[in-house]
């Protein structure tokens, strides 16, 4: 199941590279094609988001510069996509059965990003053709969300009711976001994007994919990442509960009895 998503991710990335490579060849004299990384340099403000007891969210700033090549001018478009770790979600639909509202249908989203933010300098529809946007997975509507449909795995049309409901609920909870004004230009070729990580954000590795479009085609792609992890006390508690459930359970149970006893002594009303 994860493999499907991975394969498709690789495929789209590979096609992105191909397009970029072809563009590079077409635009430059033979032999002078620079490495792709030179065209786009991206920096993430915080490679590690550390969660402490006072953690209530973080702000990640992504800076980037798309180098201009000889003879190139004209404006560029930037799309920043941040994808959190993949998790499986189930979307339930309630319907009325004999006067009662019950969970009647469900659809499972396999390895869907638990966090997904898409920021761009203007609506993606104005940047490139629908086909290109689809291939590059630009925007919430075009991000591949694999569903388990019976024995198969597939993404469905963007207006599928389960998909729409899933994206809507994830957006309402602050996990998914699409901001067509989230990328601002610091210069003609330098940009920044601010990504708010909510306190409830899932833990793990977040992939930052920056795609630059020019003349309605993909110009450059950059892939980087940052991690969101617990540290200190929070990490120790979580590790303890994972490592030795019995001992952790006994400790919590004994602790609760101690608190109950103390509470009785301190707030005794009789």
């Amino acid at each position: 199941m994860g493999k499907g998503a991975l394969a498709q991710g690789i495929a789209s990335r590979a096609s992105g590279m191909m397009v970029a490579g072809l563009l590079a060849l077409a635009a430059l004299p033979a032999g002078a094609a620079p490495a792709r990384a030179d065209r786009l340099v991206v920096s993430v403000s915080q490679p590690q988001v550390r969660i402490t007891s006072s953690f209530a969210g973080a702000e990640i700033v992504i800076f980037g510069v798309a180098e201009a090549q000889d003879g190139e001018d004209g404006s560029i478009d930037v799309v920043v996509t941040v994808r959190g770790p993949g998790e499986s979600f189930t979307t339930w639909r309630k319907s009325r059965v004999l006067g009662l509202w019950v969970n009647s249908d469900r659809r499972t989203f396999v390895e869907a990003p638990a966090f997904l933010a898409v920021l761009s300098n203007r609506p993606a529809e104005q940047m490139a053709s629908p086909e290109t946007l689809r291939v590059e997975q630009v925007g919430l509507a075009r991000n591949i969300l694999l569903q388990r449909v019976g024995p198969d795995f597939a993404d469905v049309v963007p207006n599928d009711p389960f998909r729409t409901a899933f994206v809507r609920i994830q957006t309402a909870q602050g996990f998914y976001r699409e901001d067509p004004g989230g990328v601002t230009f610091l210069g003609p070729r330098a940009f920044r994007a601010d990504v708010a990580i909510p306190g409830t954000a899932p833990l793990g590795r977040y992939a930052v994919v920056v795609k630059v479009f020019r003349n309605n085609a993909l110009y450059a792609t950059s892939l980087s990442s940052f991690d969101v992890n617990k540290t200190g006390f929070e990490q120790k508690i979580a590790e303890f509960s994972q490592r030795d459930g019995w001992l952790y359970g006994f400790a919590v149970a004994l602790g609760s009895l101690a608190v109950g006893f103390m509470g009785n002594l301190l707030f005794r009303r009789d």
Partner: protein
Amino acid sequence: MTIYLPIAELPIAIFTVFAMGLAVGFISGMFGVGGGFLMTPLLIFTGVPPAVAVASVSPYMAASSFSGALSYWRKGMLDLTLAGVLLTGGLAGTVAGVLLFLWLRMIGQVDLAIRISYAMLLGAVGSLMLVESLKAIARARRGLPPTVRRPGTRAWFMRLPLKMRFRRSRIYVSALPVVGIGFMIGLLGAVLGVGGGFILVPALIYLLRVPTQTSVGTSLVLTLVTMAVATVLHAEANGTVDAVLAFVLMIGGTMGAQFGARTGQTLKAEHLRFLLGILVLSVAVRVGVDLVSRPADTFAVTQEAQP
């Protein structure tokens, strides 16, 4: 001011959680109920994942019921023998309930079956208590002796063999119905995911004719033991007990339980039964209304448990 919960993996407003612990602890100490049936939905409402909410409420209930039980113990309103006999049935009932739950899940629609039986059970228990306590209050108003008649000592199930004397409860009955009640509470607790205090207290009062306040105290002991066991089991089996969340809840809970236990001890028994009846009935109405009214959002997203 927020604090990050290491197991639930989200920040939560510390004073809100404290206040929730205080309020539910008060009710818990007053009526001898664990308060899980109130606390679990409250936590889920504040965004805690259901699995973590259910598991972390257990140590909270253990703490607040221990705090409440100690006060009843000092007042002699606690029957340890009765609690012990109930527990033997309760543990067997819990095991049976876990198996029943697994079987229901295999058939599917376990959620619906649970909510319907929950609403019906609470509705029946709540209405009966309300009617009975209103009659008792009316009788007291007319100046008649407010005591509940105790004809129950002649009920057939009390005359079964293995008679035992429960001194604190002032009853002399067969141990079999006591074990049976414990079994039912354990079964319901495991299937419905609640401590069962709000069913146990009426069962002790009306079926075994245990004095109201002693029923409350004894129910707290039962809640304390089952919830301490549940904490260990949840921690081992699911790893979803959030110690930080439980601790914040418990600080408020133990304080609230003290005030609640004091209020409960000073109230007239029939008034206490009346209030508990209202509480139980309102939970039933709430669950029932949720079943028949159109939900605000017909879609819901749940995260699949990590393997």
